[in-house]
C-alpha cells in the first residue's frame, strides 16, 4: 500500500493538469463493485463466503441483547429490524435535533445506546459498533440511496461538497481530482472508483476486517499525506452527506467487499 501511494506523487502531476469536471451524473454512476475483479465480486455476492456477513450476524445477536442501566435491547424498542430498520440507512446522515447537526447511522446507534439504553458509548471502529451498523444497514440492501430532503441539512451538505473539492495534503489533491476527474483509471494496482458509499460498513481485503466509511475516508486523506479528520469529526459527517447525495439512486450493498 505504501508503495502504491508512492505512485500517487507521479500521478498527481497528471491529475493537476486536468480541469475539474462537474461530477458524475445518471447512467455514468458506478458502484465500486463494478471496478472489482470477478473473484472479489463473487466473494461479495455469496453470503456464505462474504466475510462481512460475520459482522451482520454479530449485529443480529447484539440487536437482541439487553444493555445498559435501562436493561433493554434494541429489539425491545425497535422490534423486528427487518421491518423497522428497512430503508433507514438509505436516508442517513440525517438531521439530529439534539445537536442541531447531521448525524450518521453509527452516531445515531450510539446515541440510542447512550440515551435510551443508558450504556457506555461504543468506540469508533469497535466490532460491536460496526456489527450493529452493518446489521441495520443490511436491512436496506438492494434499496436505492435516497437522501432526506431536509433544508436544515443543506449547509452541511454544501460544506461536504466544498471539502470534496478542496485540495489537501502534501500531494495537493482533492477527492474530486481522483474520484470525479480520473475514475476508472489506475493508481498503481488499484482502479480508482467513483467513491460511492454504497457498501459500508464493508469488508476490505486490505484491512482483513470490516471498517466504516469514515475509516475509508481517513485512508484516502492519509493517502494524499493530509492530516485525517478524527473519527466522528463533523467534517467527516459532512463529507458522508455529500457522498450520499452524489450516490443518489445507487443501491445499498452492505456488507460489500472491497480490495
Amino acid at each position, binding site marked *: 500500500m505504501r508503495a502504491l501511494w508512492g505512485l500517487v506523487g507521479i500521478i498527481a502531476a497528471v491529475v493537476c493538469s486536468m480541469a475539474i469536471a462537474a461530477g458524475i451524473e445518471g447512467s455514468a454512476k458506478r458502484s465500486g463493485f463494478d471496478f472489482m475483479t470477478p473473484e472479489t465480486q463473487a466473494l461479495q455476492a455469496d453470503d456464505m*463466503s462474504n466475510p462481512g456477513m*460475520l459482522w451482520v450476524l*454479530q449485529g443480529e445477536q447484539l440487536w437482541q441483547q439487553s444493555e445498559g442501566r435501562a436493561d433493554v435491547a434494541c429489539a425491545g424498542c425497535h422490534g423486528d429490524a427487518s421491518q423497522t430498520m428497512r430503508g433507514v440507512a438509505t436516508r442517513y446522515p440525517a438531521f439530529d435535533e439534539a445537536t442541531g447537526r447531521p448525524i450518521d447511522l453509527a452516531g445515531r446507534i450510539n446515541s440510542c445506546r447512550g440515551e435510551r439504553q443508558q450504556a457506555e458509548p461504543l468506540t469508533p471502529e469497535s466490532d460491536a459498533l460496526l456489527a450493529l451498523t452493518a446489521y441495520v444497514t443490511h436491512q436496506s440492501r438492494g434499496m436505492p440511496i435516497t437522501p432526506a430532503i431536509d433544508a436544515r441539512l443543506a449547509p452541511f451538505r454544501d460544506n461536504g461538497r466544498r471539502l470534496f473539492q478542496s485540495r489537501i495534503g502534501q500531494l495537493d489533491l482533492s477527492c474530486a481530482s481522483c474520484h470525479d476527474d480520473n475514475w476508472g483509471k489506475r493508481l498503481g494496482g488499484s482502479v480508482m472508483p467513483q467513491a460511492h458509499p454504497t457498501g459500508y460498513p464493508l469488508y476490505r481485503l486490505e484491512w*482483513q476486517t470490516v471498517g466504516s466509511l469514515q475509516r475509508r475516508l481517513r485512508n484516502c486523506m492519509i493517502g494524499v499525506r493530509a492530516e485525517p479528520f478524527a473519527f466522528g469529526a463533523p467534517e467527516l459527517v459532512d463529507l458522508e452527506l455529500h457522498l450520499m447525495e452524489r450516490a443518489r439512486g445507487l443501491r445499498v450493498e452492505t456488507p460489500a467487499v472491497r480490495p
Partner: protein
Amino acid sequence: MARALVNVPKAARQGEVVEIRAMIAHPMETGYRVGPNGINIPRDIIRRFACTYNGEEVFSADLFPAVSANPFIAFTLVATTSGTIDFTWTDDAGKTQTASAEITVG
C-alpha cells in the same frame, strides 16, 4: 459468542458428495506485527479446525500464522446418514468455538 457461518445443505441423497463451507471471525494475529507502542502484538491464531459427522471426525485442518483473518474453509463430504455436523475451532490458548448444522439424507 461464536461468530461463525457454516453452510451445509439441508438435504442430500444417500452417497451424494456435498460441499461444506465454514468461516469464523478471527483476527489470526501472526505475532510478528508491531503495535503502535513498539511492542509485538501477541500471537493469537486458530490452530485447529475440525468437523465431525454424527460424532465421528471426518475433516480437520491445522492452521498457521500465514492464514488470513476470518479463515474460510471449504471441503466435501459423502452424505451417508441424516444427522448433525459439528464444527470446532481451537485457538492458541486451547479455547474452542463451535457451530453445528443438521443434514437430512434421503
